[in-house]
């Protein structure tokens, strides 16, 4: 376990007409690793999964799984299981029928197939749903059915396309933990796709940030958060996003650079060097987000504790953490 399912994508390119969905993507996924692809909608995340699964072919580039180029290998010979964005459960089959589908196609004997399907259902806590049809189950249950179906494939790679996107917030939180636990238990290579930056931070050993078909940065989530490789990553990971000030401005002049500071690295300090007016305060319970405006027009977002005692219209002074200033090239947007 954990020694199969290594994936290497080499300069993968795929266009649909004039839309370049993937542009020269290189990505290496270690055997047994859980990696998260994150990026805005349309950035090419699903396309990467479809190429790895073999549902689509690249225009250029190689997909190497365990040392073998699989571009010409048909989907069912690739030992990958995919959980689709909206789960793609067969509507005319019961939950049990959905779980049995692949086993029956692969000619597993009925009794044996049923035994395995029940075991998978037990594992995901859907054993009492087996006689229902997919449209008689909730979103969270459907997600588990889709996962159980993937489990029965006994793949060397799991491809999960936004598996949490259609769940409501509390359920998403709980399911996130379940997914992680399942991955730890199975130790199977997993590529997880999301457009949600909070999911990207919490799920996965590493995160790859995509934008318009290109990989902008790959690394452990905390590292990508602490040292974003360019202004796109800086703006995408983190909520609210990093304050980016072209030319440095109130953060200290820096010709040819864009200076960035995260909202939590700006502190309210009566002796602080930056003068600003509070335009709005969003109390989130455990913290407060202040939207402030400096005399030169620069807007800065500040994350403070609950009940900071300032109101809209009041003046405040801010102190940036000097060790947490980010410097980006104004031309390329790359980190300097």
């Amino acid at each position, binding site marked *: 376990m954990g020694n199969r399912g290594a994936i290497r994508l080499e300069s993968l390119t795929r266009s649909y007409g004039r839309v370049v969905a993937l542009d020269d993507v290189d990505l290496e996924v270690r055997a047994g690793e859980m990696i998260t692809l994150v990026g805005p909608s349309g950035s090419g995340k699903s396309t990467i999964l*479809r190429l790895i*699964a073999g549902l689509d072919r690249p225009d250029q580039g190689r997909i190497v799984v365990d040392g073998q180029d699989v571009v010409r290998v048909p*989907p*069912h010979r690739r030992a990958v299981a995919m959980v689709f964005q909206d789960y*793609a459960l*067969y509507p005319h089959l019961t939950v049990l029928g959905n779980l049995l589908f692949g086993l029956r196609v692969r000619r597993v004997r009925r009794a044996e197939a049923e035994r395995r399907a029940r075991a998978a259902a037990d594992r995901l806590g859907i054993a009492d749903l087996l006689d229902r049809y997919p449209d008689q189950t909730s979103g969270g249950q459907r997600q588990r059915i889709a996962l159980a179906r993937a489990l029965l494939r006994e793949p060397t790679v799991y491809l999960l396309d936004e598996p949490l996107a259609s769940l409501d917030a509390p359920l998403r939180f709980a399911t996130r933990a379940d997914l992680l636990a399942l991955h730890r238990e199975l130790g199977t290579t997993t590529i997880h796709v999301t457009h949600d930056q909070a999911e990207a931070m919490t799920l996965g050993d590493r995160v790859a940030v995509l934008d318009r078909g290109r990989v902008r940065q790959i690394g452990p989530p905390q590292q990508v958060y602490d040292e974003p490789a360019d202004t796109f990553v800086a703006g995408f990971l983190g909520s609210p996003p990093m304050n980016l000030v072209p030319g440095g401005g109130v953060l200290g002049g820096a010709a040819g650079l864009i200076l960035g500071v995260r909202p939590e690295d700006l502190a309210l300090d009566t002796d602080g060097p930056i003068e600003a007016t509070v335009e709005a305060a969003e109390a989130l319970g455990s913290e407060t987000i202040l939207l402030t405006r400096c005399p030169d027009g620069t807007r800065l977002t500040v994350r403070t504790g609950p009940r900071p005692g300032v109101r809209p219209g009041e003046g405040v002074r801010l102190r940036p953490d000097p060790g947490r200033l980010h410097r980006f090239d104004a031309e390329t947007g790359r980190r300097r």
Partner: protein
Amino acid sequence: MTSGRARPPLTAWAFLAPYAVAVGLLIVLPALLNLGYAFTDHTGLTRDPQFVGLANVRRMLSDGFLLDSVQASAIHLALAVPLRLLAAVGLGLLLAAPRPGGRWFRVAVYLPTVVPDVALAVIFLWVLNPLYGPLNQLLGLFGHPGFTWLSDPGTARVAVALMLVFPIGEGFLVVLAARRLLDGRLYEAAALEGCGPFGQLRRLTLPMLAPVLLLLAVRDTILTLQVNFVPAYVLTDGRPANATLYLPVYIFDQAFEFSSFAYGALITSVLMVVTAVVITALLLVVRRWRVLR
């Protein structure tokens, strides 16, 4: 809440009224009149039909032509409905996917449906002509001497069914539209599990289209038993040896050619019953096969 459910508001009845009136005047009333005429001596020509009790029923029970007619209809049903469904479903599924030139193929499949019944029959009189018709010439290419299509009972039955395989445009369109509504991701999920094109047809497409297919089968059964008789009437007029004397043809002959309007009315009711029996049998089979949830 409960009272709202029990009694629909007056406006609902008001909106239903025009339809109800039309159904009453054009369907229910004629059907009842038809049933009444079945027990008279009405010829369709005189004004005051007399009640004759079960005379027409007695005539029916000893009518050899009626037996021939029921047999012709039954064989026709068994031949034409499966062929028409197979053609509509096969072509609909083949042409549902976008492909170069697909539009022209779809138009070609629909086109015969637009041709008027009588014109279709006249075209087939030429197609089936034993001397110069293209069908026999085509068979000739394979060294077959060809058939005298319309003068042999067996081939005449086949010929009419063959002709009716062409006007299948509506069923074709329904299948096409229904297939296009199916989610492509289901097919990708199946492909990942190793399910090939035939497996996908058997395990996904046909079961998911089952309600539509059932609807088409019921509709085509009614159509084939009751409506599609015009081209057959023109093509063979019940001949040869009553092989194509389908019930509607026989009814038409009795009611409007042999001045036995009342007897025609009685057989019409019989046709109703036959249709109901066939459809009930169909639904029972379907229930047994569990193709519907």
